Each structure stands twice: as C-alpha cells, then as structure tokens.
C-alpha cells in the first residue's frame, strides 16, 4: 500500500520566480519524513509538488521528476486528478467542507470516485476512518452536525480522516499542527505515529521538537539569500540530523543560531 517517493532534479516556479532548485532525494515507505527549514525555503512548495497541487496556484510549474514507485507523476499521460487520489494531503489550517456534516466530510472523497456505496458500507468506512483518526468517540453522537462546529484540533483530525478514507498510498501534511494548541498537537502526533505503519508520511513543520519526536528521517532546506531559490541541504536519519549533522548550516539552524 505505502509507496516510496524519488525526487529527481526538481525545480519549481511561481511564474518567473524560482522557488526551489534542483532537489534530489527520496522518501522511504511506511515511515515519517520531516521537512524543516526557515520560512520561504520552499519546503511547502516541494510538498505540494508531490501531489501536483503546486500547479493549482496560478503560474505554478515544475521541472524534473517525482517518481512514485518508479512511476513519474509528471509523465505526459498522468492525470493530476488520479495523482491526488493516490497522494493525500492535510493542510496547515483545518479545512473541513463548511457546507457538509462530519459524516459527509469523511465520505466526500469516496463519493468522488464514482463508486456507489451501500449505506451500511459507507457507515462502516466512515466509522473506521474516524476511529483511525482518533476522533470517533468525540463525534459519534453528532455525525450529522456540521464539521465546522468542531474545535480546531478535532477539525484537523476530521481532515485526516477525510484524507485517509480514500486509502491513499502517501499522506502529505503541511504544518498540520501550526494552528493548534499543545494538547491537540499531541493528539495529532500520536495519530501520525499510528498512521505510519500503513502510509508513507511526509510532514512539513516549523517546530523542530516535533520533527525530532515524530519523524524517522529529516530533510533540512535552506535558501542562500532572500529571493534565491531554496535548496536541500541534507537529508538523513532524524537522530543523526539532530545529534551530528554533516553540514554546519544544519547544526546552526537546529541549535537556534538562525531561522
């Protein structure tokens, strides 16, 4: 189910502006990879190239390759809609569909696939994924209430349930805890730990303790100067990055000397 990602010489643009340049790295299946680095270094941009969401932004385009188990996501025959069904995404701010109930939010992706589910089947899937997102006990009595009535942390777990309900192979998380309080953050981190046994997870975070807590591998990005494209500085086992990184810049960033 979980797949490996290989990024090859990837460069991404916003119009004429080059946001990231020549990134080459890989992401291991069934593990958590964290992207860290100062603001503007392009870690979110890179994340969004992994499910072809980057090109949704006006002017967004990409050069290079992203291989998902040796299949190029940017190949000429590839439908970006199909890519996004395989590679799920959780955003920085919780964004449940405001016009839908909790139940419908979880079922939203399934209904897109055009398969007709029986009510009982759909009930099972919704329950399983809400349990999977550690949210079931909090919402089981109000599945027909709007998702926007939940707390921020609950909304974010609802978004995770929505993303995993379509059984993606990879789950991308763009600073999923940055709008949440510490308790909700802990709940999400526990959830990530549980999900990594089934999914390939990539998480962008500004919180280095979080990267150290949840990830198996960490990639550090930096930009040489303001206005220049961001670059991958190094990627390695999280323990190594946080104890004995190979590049001095990484150590400076992690020890808080800049960024």
């Amino acid at each position, binding site marked *: 189910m979980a797949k490996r990602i290989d990024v090859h010489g990837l460069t991404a643009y916003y119009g004429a502006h080059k946001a990231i340049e020549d990134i080459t790295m890989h992401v291991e299946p069934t593990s958590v990879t964290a992207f860290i680095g100062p603001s503007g270094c392009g870690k979110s941009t890179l994340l969004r190239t992994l*499910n072809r*969401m980057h090109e*949704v932004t006006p002017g967004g385009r990409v050069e290079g390759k992203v291989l998902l188990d040796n299949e190029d996501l940017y190949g000429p025959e590839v439908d970006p*809609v*199909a*890519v*996004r*069904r395989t590679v*799920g*995404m959780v*955003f920085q*701010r919780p*964004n*449940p*569909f*405001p*016009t*839908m109930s909790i139940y419908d939010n979880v079922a*939203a*992706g399934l209904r*897109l*696939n055009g398969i007709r589910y029986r009510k009982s089947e759909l009930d099972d899937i919704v329950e399983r994924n809400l349990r999977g997102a550690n949210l079931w006990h909090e919402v089981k009595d109000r599945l027909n209430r*709007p998702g*926007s*009535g939940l707390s921020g942390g609950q909304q974010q777990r609802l*978004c995770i349930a*929505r*993303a995993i309900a*379509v059984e993606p192979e990879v789950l991308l998380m763009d600073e999923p805890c940055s709008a949440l309080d510490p308790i909700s953050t802990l709940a999400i981190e526990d959830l990530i730990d549980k999900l990594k046994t089934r999914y390939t997870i990539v998480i962008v975070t500004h919180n280095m303790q979080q990267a150290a807590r949840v990830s198996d591998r960490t990639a550090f990005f930096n930009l040489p100067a303001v206005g220049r494209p961001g670059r991958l500085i190094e990627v390695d086992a999280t323990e190594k990055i946080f104890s004995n990184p190979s590049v001095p810049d990484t150590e400076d960033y992690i020890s808080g000397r800049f960024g």
Partner: protein
Amino acid sequence: MNATTQRHPGGASRRAARLGDRIFAGLAKGSGITLLLTMAAVAVFLTVRATLALREDEGNFLTTFEWRTGGEDPEFGIAVLLFGTAASSLIAMLLAVPVAVGIALFLTHYAPRRLAAPIAWLVDLLAAVPSIVYGLWGALYLVPRLTGCYEWLDGAFGWTGVLSYAGAPARSLMTVGILLAVMILPIVTSVTREVFRQTPRATQEAALALGATRWEVVRMTVLPFGRSGIVSASMLGLGRALGETMAVATVLSPSFLIHASLLDSGGGTFAQNIASQFKEADTAGRDALIASGLVLFLLTLLVNGAARLIIARRREYAGAAL
C-alpha cells in the same frame, strides 16, 4: 495635576469629538425615525385608499375576472393580475437563474482572466439598458421572431394545453417571461458571481487534494457555499420581475382573461395594469389600482420572507468558512 493634563493632551479636541459623536448619533436617529414615519404614512395612505376601493367592489376582489371601476356597481378582481404576474415572473426565473449561475461559474472558475473581465462588463451593461428600451425591443423584435418558435412548441407540446398556440401575435405571458429573463439576468449574474468568488481557497484546495475534478470542486464547494447567495440573487431578480412595468406594458396585449396556454396573447400583471389604467382612472378607479398595488407589495414581502427562511435554515453550514 500635571499628570492629568498629560494624560489628556488634546482635551479640547476630545470634547469636540464627543460633540461630533452626538451630532452624528442625532442625525442617524433622525434619519431612522424619518424613514419609519414615511413608511407608516405610505402604509396608512395605501391601506385607507385600498379599503375605500374594496368597500365599493361588487365582485370578489380575489376571484373576479374583470376590471370595471367606473360608473355604477364597479366590479374588479385581481385573479388575472395575480396569475399573470406569478406566471411571467416564474418563467423569467426558470430561464434566467440557470443561465446566470452558468455565466457566474464560467466567469469565476473556467474563463481565463483576460476573458472574464470583458464578459462580466458586458453582462453588467445589460443592467444599464432602460426598461422601455427592452419593451420596444421586445415588441418590435422579439414578438415577430417568437411566432415561429411558438408554432414549433405548439406542434411538439401543444397537447399539454399549457403550450398550445392559436397563432395571434406573440404578445403573451411567455413572451413577457422571456423578456423579463433577459432583464433580470445581469443582477442575478453579478450577485451570484460575487458569492462564487468568495468560496474559500482552502475549501477548494481540500476538494482538489482529494482528487476532485474541476466540476467536482464546483459541485462540492462552490455551489453549496454559494447556495444562499443564489437564493438571494434570485429573489433580487424576482423582485425586479414582479414589479417590472414599462417593458411588460409595451409587450403584452392586455386582457382580463386567463388562458390555459401561456403562449396565447392576453393576460396582465399588477404593475402593467396600474400603468395602463392609471391615467384614465377616476378617483375610485385609482383606489382600486392602489388596492392591487398593495397586493403586489404583500406578494413581494412574502417572497422575500420565504427566501430569508431558506437562507436561515442553511446558516449553520454556511458559517465558519475560513
């Protein structure tokens, strides 16, 4: 003492500001009260005149197919007007709202930006055309050209009765409905467009990231988010259609009959009837017209109330959009 003066360095100007506040509050309150008084005066005037007319009416005001206000035992009723107004406005809504929603979707989610702005401008331009011009266009251009169209409708759907056509000039409620549709299109389009444009980016990205196609994004996020906006836009359009006077009076050939067919000439609407009869009416006749105007007012009120109910029922789902 010194500290106090320092804390209020501009004591004089602060007092002046408070005076300004008081003047503004007085003005605002005064305007509010004036508005209420004006409304009350209009309401009293209309109700008194309408009551006078109703007392004279020998027929049933709701069911009589007749508008004879002069002379001995006047007999008049609004049945034909109510039907004509409702039917023509309904036709206009059925034709205009889907087209307007389509245009708004195209402008906000499909058209390239270079194309969207001029098209939006053209649609807005339709709203600037005076209604008498629409009326002339309808009477001189639309009516002769619709005859063929109605003959075809008669051939295909004549058996329903509603769409049968006897062949006279097409100065019918259907023609009025089509004309009204064109007239309300710009307002419905521009309000819907504004609402669609406000669909949160985050919600649309959520749908995209789930693997939604462009149409699915529209169906999952834009349309539900804009639902109450579509309703209010439609009601704005309906308000205009219900009250439209000159264009209807120019196109329709009025008669106090309800045809089974919407395509046959004849019928009337509240506003058109008032405009056509007001000049020649005596005092009693004008009172009768005022009574019919009051019904139109109540109808509009009812429609607006219904729209508010629809919007309020969905409110809890509409909020909390980031």
